[in-house]
């Protein structure tokens, strides 16, 4: 079920009144049943998968509590993590490995069968497996107590707002909120609606409008000149941001209406002036997951510089692989890993020695702007790999852009969509830029009429500029 579909509107409008009319266990059962309905709407067969993962991690969590037998705890942790990874690996990487294996066989002159089994990727599997893994790891590390109620735990795994594309919510944040009935709170409802409207703006106005320009360019890069492709790449950066941040905001907004407070998942990432800041602003729930459960356990930055660089690279490569089994995603992760490493080297060798003393505020701002543009440019370069259908297309696009020929405005196709897209990006950047100067949240919270005016204006803007057509969310494929 897509958030931007009539099905979902009917679903949520039926669910919310029932949710607030019920209490205690009834409400929890209703939440679980609705979450399973939401997930099963896509393909009911995978309800079995989510149920198995829930039972497995719940059982393992209960058995990681023994204070006297650390070995037993470790065994149950291993069962939980390995089986989650195996399930994830099977569904996500089976096709990749068989395809590569068949290609290798063909290359060696053997007849690699092309009739290999094709596996369907269950929607949201990467999100809910990471969520359940974080739970058992936190229990093992004694950060949280194991959950005793299977019902609560099942809701934690399958809660519909964030089930298929995050944010990846930690058990320490979510499960305690399940233990008390969330009261009907008008402030939560208004804030939830505000978040949902902004989320829809990002998805329907920004992402879906830009996708019309982006898709046609990446479908056949040879049809477009360098300027046209450069526009496609920049638009994709904002498309994926609008799409993913939009989904997260709708998820957080729906949860807020139901009384749950989920952490922010995107915080104006394209205003980042370096790569570590970018990862503190982009897909925060995933980047913090990798930081806490991979980068730090690998040693983080505690075991010397070389190991820190290695850890950064491993984390980012696996971050790329998390998105999907393709060399393009691995290269995307690799570019970010390298960028983080180079940034560290730069910082350690240059910035520390030479303290910058800008003569005026203007130069500080200009320097910051340059850094933002530079960071954004490298992020865009990495997006080329993320978006292209294959490695050849990615290299073709990059070669075309960097040849600096063929930058002819008259050769840019879909001019009206391009102008509309550029205008929408400017509006988004302006609004987000302004939010650094004005605390919009406080302003809106303190002035109820202003909130309503802002939300109504956004709704009209969505009606006027939105692209409607049940467009799926990009991160559903992950």
């Amino acid at each position: 079920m897509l958030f931007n579909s009539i099905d979902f509107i009917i679903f949520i409008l039926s669910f919310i009144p029932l949710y607030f009319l019920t209490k205690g266990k009834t409400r929890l059962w209703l939440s679980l049943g609705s979450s399973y309905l939401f997930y099963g709407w896509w393909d009911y067969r995978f309800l079995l998968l989510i149920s198995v993962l829930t039972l497995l991690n719940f059982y393992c969590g209960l058995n990681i509590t023994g204070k006297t037998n650390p070995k037993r705890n470790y065994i149950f942790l291993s069962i939980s993590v390995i089986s989650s990874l195996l399930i994830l690996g099977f569904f996500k990487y089976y096709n990749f490995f068989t395809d590569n294996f068949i290609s290798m066989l063909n290359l060696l002159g053997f007849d690699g069968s092309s009739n290999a089994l094709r596996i369907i990727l269950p929607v949201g599997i990467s999100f809910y497996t990471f969520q359940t893994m974080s739970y058992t790891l936190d229990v093992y590390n004694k950060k949280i107590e194991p959950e005793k109620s299977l019902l609560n735990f099942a809701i934690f795994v399958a809660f519909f707002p964030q089930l298929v594309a995050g944010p990846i919510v930690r058990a320490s944040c979510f499960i305690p909120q399940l233990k008390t009935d969330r009261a009907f709170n008008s402030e939560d409802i208004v804030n939830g609606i505000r978040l949902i409207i902004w989320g829809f703006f990002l998805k329907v106005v920004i992402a879906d409008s830009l996708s019309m320009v982006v898709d046609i360019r990446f479908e056949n890069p040879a049809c477009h000149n360098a300027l046209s492709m450069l526009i496609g790449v920049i638009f994709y950066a904002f498309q994926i941001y609008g799409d993913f941040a939009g989904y997260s905001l709708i998820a957080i907004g729906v949860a807020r209406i139901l009384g749950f407070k989920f952490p922010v998942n995107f915080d104006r990432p394209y205003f980042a002036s370096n790569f570590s800041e970018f990862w503190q602003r982009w897909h925060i729930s995933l980047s913090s997951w990798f930081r806490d459960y991979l980068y730090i356990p690998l040693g983080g930055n505690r075991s010397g510089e070389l190991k820190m660089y290695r850890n950064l690279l491993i984390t980012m490569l696996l971050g790329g692989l998390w998105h999907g089994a393709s060399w393009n995603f691995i290269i995307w992760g690799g570019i970010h890993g390298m960028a983080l490493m180079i940034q560290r080297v730069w910082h350690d060798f240059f910035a520390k020695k030479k303290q910058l003393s800008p003569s005026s505020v203007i130069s500080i701002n200009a320097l910051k702007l340059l850094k933002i543009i530079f960071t954004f440019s490298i992020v865009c370069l990495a997006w080329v790999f993320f978006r292209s259908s294959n490695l050849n297309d990615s290299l073709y696009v990059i070669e075309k852009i960097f040849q600096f020929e063929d930058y002819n405005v008259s050769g840019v196709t879909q001019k009206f969509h391009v102008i509309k897209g550029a205008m929408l990006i400017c509006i988004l950047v302006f609004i987000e830029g302004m939010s650094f100067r004005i605390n919009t949240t406080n302003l809106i919270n303190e002035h109820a009429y202003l909130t309503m005016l802002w939300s109504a204006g956004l709704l009209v803007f969505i009606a006027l500029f939105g692209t409607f057509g049940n467009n799926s969310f990009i991160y559903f494929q992950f």
Partner: protein
Amino acid sequence: MTLAKKLITLIFTFFLIDLLISISLSELSNSSKIRFSRLYNEEINADIVFVGDSRGINSFYSPYFDDLTGLNSINLSYNGLTIPIVNALLDDYLERNKAPKIIFIETTCLKDTYNVLPNFKQYMAHSLSIKNMLKEHYPNIFYASFISKSYIFNSEYFLRTLYYLKKNDQKWINRYTIRKDYYDSIKPENNLKMVEKIDDSAMIIFKIMVTEYRKKGIVVIPVLAPILDKYRNETVIDNYISDINTNTKLDVVDLSDAVNDISMFADAVHTNEKGAHLIASKLYNLPELKNLTITSSGQ
């Protein structure tokens, strides 16, 4: 402020902003110089009307055609336009204007689909046919336009309406040339769909149109605009043309092989301005047009 008050304020403000914006945009739409705004708000009374999809836009360059013939023409083609919508637009045209002498129709619009129809929702108030077609084929869009009046201006077409607010849209044509690497990458089998078999339903609509226009003394000339050499397949094109001939008893002006110089193409399926000039001179030599120009100059 209570939750109910907040929600009522939100809904009321939404409708108020929406109404004010839609009134302003409607004014802009009515005063625009784009072809269909002119159709619904001005008297045009052209001697010749061109219709078609994007191939119609880029094949029939009416300013050049007017210079060449001394006649007054209008191009009512639009990207993705198909025959049922052409039918509705021409009916609306004939209701508001004198019947033209000739209607040229680019035949690749002979499809019975409605994908482009939502672009015309801003004319629902002007055209009953468009309103009914939207209601039938896009009920969601039709009913959504009752909730938000601004929504009817949410289309690529409306952006063009703004672009041509003060500009003559008849000069709209591709002014670039096909890229060499793109031309080299074209695989012939990909785009023969352009002249594939015409749906029976599309042919029926076209036949009815031709019969009606004949009664009004309008000459209908179907034209198959130039096709890039890589896509040309004589057998397929011959079958396609004979299909139209058999059904409508009209001779198709076959210009599919009239342009062999690839610098006259903007992309794989559209000519550019240079190509359109060549097409205009080919059409100028048609006997129907010669007769018309002689009569006009005689008058």
